């Protein structure tokens, strides 16, 4: 059972209270972009064995979206953070580095 701490209401919410929102930090390529960029934005997703950054929504709760950093292999959760950021905050990056030295995810490390 996955348990994530909602950064908005402070609740340790279990999986059945949450709704998964797919990969985090996608950059949108909309009108005027090249077909290739638009294709990648629509379809290309990370599928890592290890560190992953995701969006979650506390659907049966405060209703807010947030980000979570976790490991897809061990289900270990490194931390959760605000949805209003373009990249993980330093605290989260440090927490991942402490457990998974040398990790990379897209452009982050």
């Amino acid at each position, binding site marked *: 059972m996955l348990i994530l701490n909602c950064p*908005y*209401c*402070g*609740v340790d*919410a*279990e999986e*059945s*209270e949450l709704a998964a929102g797919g990969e985090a930090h996608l950059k949108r390529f909309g009108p005027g972009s090249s077909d290739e960029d638009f294709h990648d934005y629509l379809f290309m997703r990370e599928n890592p064995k290890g560190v992953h950054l995701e969006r979650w929504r506390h659907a*049966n*709760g*405060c*209703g*807010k979206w947030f980000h979570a950093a976790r490991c897809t292999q061990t289900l270990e959760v490194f931390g959760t953070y605000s949805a209003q950021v373009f990249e993980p905050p330093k605290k989260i990056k440090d927490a991942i580095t402490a457990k998974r030295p040398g990790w990379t995810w897209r452009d982050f490390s």
Partner: protein
Amino acid sequence: MSEPISALNHASYDGIAKVEECGLQGMITLRGDLSDKVLAKAVKDATGQKVPGQREAFIDGDTGVCWMSTDELLVLVPYAEVEAKLATMNNALSGIHALAVNVSDARAVFRVSGASAREVLGKLAPVDLSKEAFQPGQIRRSRLAQVAGAFWMDDTETFRVVCFRSTADYVFNLLKVAAQPGSEVGFY
């Protein structure tokens, strides 16, 4: 004018805890910047309470205010006063970015009381309801089996449960099954 009645019109059930539908309850959903002084004054005027912090609920009988999320409060007022209170509130909030809506008739409210009340709720919601973790003065939005619901404690043995009116019958049936005689778990 037709007479408003609540979803289950005071249905009740006695088991390891007493489950009652509470009847009509005035409710106003208030969204806005919770740190705004104008908003705080509107809440104070309507309920006599200050703006609650994270997951706090300040409730006295059928009047009070609950923290629903970082930008949302649930204001409880007596059903008969809801239109007047809402008008006053909307008037007070006219200058700021905020929204207040009467949702009284969209909700149903239950009271679960008795020594095993924690057990009954604990069977339905994925929430730690131990005495250390959940006490009067707190509100928790979660799910009750398959539908959304919120609850708080009026005293150490009484919960009040809020759900959508459309799911009132389902939630009442859930609470009845969870409160069946002889179904104590003895965990809390």
